[in-house]
């Protein structure tokens, strides 16, 4: 029987994988994919808690909002990446370091 704990462990793993991708990947698009994983880990948690703990549909509504926000965030981030590509001719995050100190 699949219970709350399974979902929580799954979400935890998803979050850690996303964070790992953010910390280790050098390509900005892959970093963005990691961020999407982290956001979706939150979504899994919300829906699972709504099913097993909460009453009403608050958690699911919250998750729906997050899906929309994640899309908006991805749109803005990709536009910024495009701008970076036009300026720098690459999107390798650790080679973009004019600002430091």
């Amino acid at each position, binding site marked *: 029987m699949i219970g709350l704990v399974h979902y929580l462990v799954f*979400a935890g793993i998803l*979050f850690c994988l*996303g*964070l790992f991708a*953010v910390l280790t990947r050098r390509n*900005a698009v892959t*970093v*963005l994919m990691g*961020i999407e994983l*982290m*956001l979706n*880990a*939150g*979504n899994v*948690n*919300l829906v*699972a*808690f*709504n099913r097993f*703990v*909460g*009453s*009403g*549909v*608050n*958690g699911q*509504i*919250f998750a729906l*909002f*997050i899906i929309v*926000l994640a899309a*908006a*965030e991805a749109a*803005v*981030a990709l*536009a*910024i*990446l495009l*701008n*970076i590509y*036009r*300026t*720098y001719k690459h999107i390798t*995050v650790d080679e*973009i*370091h*004019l*600002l*430091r*100190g």
Partner: protein
Amino acid sequence: MPHSIDSLSFEASTAATIESLGQIVPELIVTCTVLAIVLVDLFFIRGKGKRQGPLEMVVLAGMGAALIATWAGFAGEPRAVFGTMMVVDPFSSFFDAVFLLATVLFVFSTMMSNEIAVADRSEYYTLAVGSVLGMMLMASSTDMVSIFISVEFVSLASYVMAGFVRGDRRSSEASLKYVLYGSVSSAVLLFGFSYLYGLTGTTSLIEANQVLYASNPYPLALLFALVLVIAGLGFKIACVPFHFWAPDVYEGAPTPVTAFFTVAPKAAGFALLSRFLVTLLSNPSTSPGFWTFLGSLDWPLLVGILAAGTMTLGNFGALRQTNMKRLLAYSSIAHVGFVLMAVSTLSPEGLHAIIVYMAAYLVMNLGAFLVVIAIRERTGSVDLRDYDGLANDAPMLVVAMVVFLYSLTGLPPSLGFLGKYYVFAETIRQEIWWLAAIGAVNSVIALYYYFRVAKALVFRPLRERQWTGAIPELATSLSVALAAVTLVFGVPWGAFEKVTTYSATLFLGR
């Protein structure tokens, strides 16, 4: 099922929503301003030769109307609107006024800077005023859903504003760093919220507080959730150890945008953080004048430690900077530390100190940035080495700058002193001696780097050089006016005291 929607309750909730809309007039005015900017640009400016003026008038008129509406609603009864999604109370009204005033000064600073092309101004103001709407929602949100949406509202607009100078490497880099780090922090915040929802079964902070007060069966899980949430929010206000993005973003972004970022979103972050901590995590049944913390986390101690780290690292970072924008970025991190010190006292007096400090910081920091922008117009540089002897070139501007630096240091009589006074008085009243001592040492360190700037401006000889332009007239008069405000309000006035004390009233639903 408790949540089935029949037609009767649907009508009732529609009526409640319309009634709630009448409670948030300032927010509605700001929304209309965003639409007005787009329409005015479309019908009156596009294709008719770009010039400065009409858009600025629209933004200023909108902000003015919203300020009047905020003032009219200031004395109203604290109340929850849209269920418990948002509250309208003196605390939120005060912060609304801070955001609106910051926007007014931001418009003036954009007008005197040549960094933002006039052709791009309509998108620029749309984003800025849109983010102000998000900040106003941040200051009143009491539900995890509305908190997250309003935080994202501000962040998404900010990411684009940081990179607004297309083709400029520094500006692009600033926006890239901002969007990557910012999205990660949002995801961390959301993950914290999801556990908080699981632990309390509700997204409303007011209801969650009652649930946690009744029982707290999983203290360790609550601790984990709160650490995630505080990390997410700490990133937004740039507190150590989540501050690393701030100097880069503030240096790379266009200067008027940097000026705006250091004040408005930061004030919104503090409004949200203090409302979150007080509404969710303080005890409802204690004597007035003192609150106690709730839950497994001694969060006043945690915030106190963050405050000490933030002000120390901010100040030591500022010591070795030669770029004025970067110096002011580190100085803003140090000021975040002082405000966090007020947050950690956990008392109504602490909220009062936050309010005074943010008002003071609005005036003195935006004033300092106005001068930096004006000097950039004159010398084409924000490097401290190009500041030598400018007192001979623009005496009034430099006098104003010295007043702002004096106030940022926190010396009496100035607004900055008043802010620090309330913060330290409350920290000492709560007998958090170690934090007060660290704060005092930091004030002395700050003296060094602020006066390094003043020394360069006043005592060094003026070098022969190529000027890139003239000091804008508007900059001189505006910065002198702000300097006057800094000094005049440095004396504690009864009325100012009354307004700020009243502003520390929160709607807690208890």
